[in-house]
């Protein structure tokens, strides 16, 4: 029982419930199902991206290019829609996933074949993809008047009280749960991260596993590109700037170890929900939304400290201070 309560997912869920309860005492409307659905819908994109990032972090990598990927695919989708409203939105969505996947695969190839550290690769592609949005759009916007109604309405269509955006997020999260728990590919992400040498001996190609993780993360970012543009009805160079840090924060808060091999889909999603609840609660309790960034920074640092305490290896220590180095 105590072990169950000490699990990161259970603790996070409890913390989120406490925050919701506390905010509800200040403002009665916050805890209503209607508002909670709105908060979930608001966090849907972040939660999906966190699932993609989870795979990448599990394999001891990091993908900082997802927000730029999102902006680029979203811009391409919006421009095609503005130029050719006849193209079905479903085709655009598939196109977004493919383009996003290709952008992710580019990161993956550099990490896999050239062995460049992931942080360097994705810092580079982050600026390249963001700059490409400018090149593609010429620095202009695509907004509500240019988009077709169906393009805008798809994410808003309500089914069983939940908007389509939330349903899509739920389906994506469910697919990730299945992937991680029920397929050998899912298990190989853990194996490649926790001990790459052992994984290699077990017949897992660690580089290829990283490549797949980056590609999947890119595909999610591509899908999120359409969803973002459709939800906020704006595509511009500055869309989702800095979102990659929120996504990494969601993972770290959800107990995903930055050293690889440790983390769950549930944790990443709850980490995203934690940030979503905080971001939505701030204006309600009268704190300036400009505090958001500082709070998520503090949350990242606190979570990393917690994670490190849980992960410290309990091995034989020969020289105590050497363990630190």
């Amino acid at each position, binding site marked *: 029982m105590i072990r169950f309560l000490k699990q990161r997912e259970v603790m996070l869920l409890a913390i989120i419930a406490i925050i919701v309860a506390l905010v509800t005492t200040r403002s009665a409307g916050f805890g209503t199902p209607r508002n909670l659905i709105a908060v979930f819908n608001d966090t849907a994109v972040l939660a999906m991206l966190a699932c993609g990032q989870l795979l990448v972090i599990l394999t001891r990598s990091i993908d900082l290019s997802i927000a730029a990927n999102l902006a680029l695919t979203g811009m391409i989708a919006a421009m095609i829609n503005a130029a050719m409203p006849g193209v079905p939105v479903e085709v655009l969505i598939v196109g977004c996933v493919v383009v996003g996947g290709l952008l992710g695969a580019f990161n993956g190839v550099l990490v896999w074949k050239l062995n460049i550290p992931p*942080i360097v690769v994705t810092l580079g592609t982050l600026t390249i993809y963001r*700059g490409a949005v400018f090149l593609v759009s010429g620095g202009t916007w695509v907004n509500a008047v240019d988009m077709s109604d169906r393009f805008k309405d798809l994410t808003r269509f309500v089914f069983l009280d939940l908007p389509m955006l939330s349903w899509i997020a739920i389906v994506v999260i469910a697919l990730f749960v299945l992937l991680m728990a029920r397929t050998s590919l899912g298990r190989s992400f853990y194996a490649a991260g926790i001990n790459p040498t052992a994984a290699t001996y077990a017949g897992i190609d660690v580089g290829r596993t990283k490549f797949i993780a980056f590609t999947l993360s890119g595909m999610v970012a591509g899908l999120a590109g359409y969803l973002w543009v459709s939800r906020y009805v704006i595509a511009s160079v500055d869309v989702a700037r800095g979102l990659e840090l929120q996504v*990494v924060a969601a993972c770290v808060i959800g107990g995903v170890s930055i050293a690889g091999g440790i983390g769950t889909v549930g944790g990443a999603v709850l980490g995203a929900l934690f940030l979503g609840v905080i971001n939505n609660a701030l204006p309600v309790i009268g704190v300036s939304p400009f505090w958001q960034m500082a709070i998520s920074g503090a949350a990242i640092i606190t979570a990393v400290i917690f994670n490190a305490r849980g992960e410290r290896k309990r091995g034989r220590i020969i020289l105590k201070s050497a363990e630190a180095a």
Partner: protein
Amino acid sequence: MTDTTSNTPHRHIPDRLDNPVKSAIFSWETLLVLVGVAIFIANAFASPYFLNEWSLSDLTFNFTEKAVIALAMALLIISGEIDLSVAAIIALASTLTGMAVQWGVPTPGLVAIGVGVGLLCGAFNGFLVTGLKLPSIVVTIGTMSLFRGLSYAILGDQAYGGYPGDFSWFGQGYVWWVVSFEFVFFVLAAIVFWFMLHRTNFGRRIFAIGNNALAAQFSGVRVNRIKFVLFCLTGLMSGIAAVMLTARLGSTRPSIAQGWELEVITMVVLGGVNILGGAGSILGVVLAALIMGLVTFGLGLLNVPGIVMSIFIGSLLIVVIALPILNRLWRERRQ
């Protein structure tokens, strides 16, 4: 930076050592000098406004603030750590300096606050990494968000201005003729850092830590203390850069120096510092800073927008790291 276990590089043991003259000619630094000269000549041909002492002086403003941070960042990366929060430190230091202006603090106080805040932020990073033994990538992603977030929390959508006239000298002043204070400071700092890294025990220890921290620890090197000092140094240089940038712009917004961490790291890596630690030189970083200054200034003279330049810098970062690896793979295949 954590992933070194899975792919140990092949070690070649040569039967004779390289000729020092030959290895100097084929070094990374020589290549950088050639590239720099080529870009300089290309700039001179591309724009009639380039070869002018004031243009060249303006060019130095383009990169000195970033280069000053890159000097310290090089040491940190050689030791096997990284600091992604440097641009956020600039934002926070600049914001608190701007706040002090509103309280009527005179210029020496403003400089002390800017530099001091930088040092404190660096010490905070250093404490988290060495004291609590956390990975530097994720710690500095966190503090990057925290420091810039604080400056957003303080300023919101406002801006600080009204810096005193003599304060602006640190960003706009000239020591002699067209030689700016910023450039003189950069040159002096480069000499100090060169001496520190290549001519002192401290520098040798940084290389030792970067190559094998555990072995260094067993050899009596105080790994954590040196890493802590390097984080403080990086923070200090970011604070100095914050003073120079704030003085040059004459105003502070929370979005100041956005994305600079990338350019600083690109400078360091372009300068031949191994991103996994253990190798690098200050001369290389200085040359890389000059090249990036030349490129961005040259593109600016040709009216290329900033965001397009950033594509160029991002590609440069990847290509510069990829080329030596491709070269090695190609040679291994031939053997």
